């Protein structure tokens, strides 16, 4: 946070905060030791506000606002866990499970999956929405990695990390609505996309078991969601020059 900017003041759940004027609400919430669930957001990547789990209520705002893309303002009075927000968050997580094909029991990410974690966080013990069983496929064309679309929650972290950090822009989103899917290249098999450097960053940041290393079996995935932030920081702070 830049020291030049004036500080702003406000409160979150009754707890006063002081923050740099360019901070996001999510930074402030976490800085205060509080927690809101997130899935699409990842430190080091451009926020997109797509999963809607981090929505918070701000007094005087007619709409709920996503903490990850909302900049703080002086006098903001924020509530992160109103009954309404808790109801909507749980419904959102149920919708995530219902729209894909999640069978945690044999998933590579079982035990290290952010969707699983978020389900626990919002108290989801079952889905009131019927599972949709969409017809999706697995792309195992890459020599080292696989993409199991059944588990993809369309957070677009892979799209952003590959574009913004690796600079390869292998991934994009194709199709519309409930048929959306992550696509490699021009909707080609991943292994055919020459732009992929096999850096593994997309696998590191994927919050679920959608992207994984081929050698990983059930429950063996070890994600590294901290890496984009480390790399972005290393670049902006020129860490390699200070070694």
């Amino acid at each position: 946070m830049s020291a030049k900017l004036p500080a702003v003041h406000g409160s979150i759940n009754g707890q006063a905060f002081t923050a740099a004027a360019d901070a996001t609400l999510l930074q402030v919430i976490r800085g205060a030791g509080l927690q809101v669930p997130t899935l699409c957001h990842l430190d080091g990547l451009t926020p997109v506000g797509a999963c809607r789990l981090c929505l918070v209520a701000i007094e005087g705002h007619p709409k709920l606002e996503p903490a990850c893309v909302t900049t703080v303002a002086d006098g903001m009075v924020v509530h992160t866990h109103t009954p309404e927000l808790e109801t909507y968050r749980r419904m959102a997580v149920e919708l995530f499970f219902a729209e894909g094909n999640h069978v945690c029991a044999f998933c590579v990410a079982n035990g290290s999956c952010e969707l699983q974690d978020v389900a626990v966080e919002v108290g989801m013990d079952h889905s009131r929405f019927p599972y949709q069983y969409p017809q999706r496929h697995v792309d195992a064309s890459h020599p080292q990695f696989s993409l199991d679309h059944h588990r993809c929650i369309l957070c677009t972290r892979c799209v952003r990390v590959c574009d913004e950090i690796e600079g390869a822009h292998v991934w994009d989103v194709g199709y519309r609505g409930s048929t959306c899917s992550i696509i490699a290249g021009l909707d080609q098999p991943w292994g055919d996309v020459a732009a992929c450097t096999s850096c593994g960053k997309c696998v590191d940041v994927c919050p679920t078991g959608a992207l994984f290393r081929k050698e990983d079996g059930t429950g063996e995935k070890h994600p590294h969601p901290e890496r984009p932030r480390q790399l972005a920081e290393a670049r902006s702070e020129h860490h390699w020059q200070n070694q």
Partner: protein
Amino acid sequence: MTTPPPKLRFATVWLAGCSGCHMSFLDLDEWLFELAEAVEIVYSPVASDTKVFPQGVDLCLVEGAVANADNLELALQLRARSKVVVSFGDCAVTANVPGLRNLWAGVDGGSRQSVLDRGYLELADTGAQHPHAPGIVPELLERVLPLHEVIPVDHYLPGCPPSAERIRTFLEHLLRGEEPAMEGPAMLGFG
């Protein structure tokens, strides 16, 4: 003279699941003795020989999804005869692995035909044929359903399987007449 309070009539049911949830239940080991003090096990694939689901059950744990005609019939019966019904494990809660054949609901012939063809014709080494024994082998339902899409369910105990610890905490609450606090990683979480 005081008569001891009547024991809680307890049942466990095994629908379309792998029996893993019941194995986890058995992992409760010596706590099972304590449980046996508190409840009367009136129906269970692992602790009772009764073949017909009895009347007047207080608490029923149901493992497995509803995948065939027998599952459906038993689900309706246990609901009518039980005070409290618990979806026990991921298969009951989400349809989980048995529900995977629902992915074929949209393909030619539907999920029932596809899974039978795959299992008994395509993958057969010899003597490929569909099982056929009316009255013995139950008909598959076209769609495998989680328990709560078939009958009203009172509690959900997720996990594949739910750990013995989770089952125990859950049952202890119920036995004390409390609402089980389904919160946090100890009590929640699929897989």
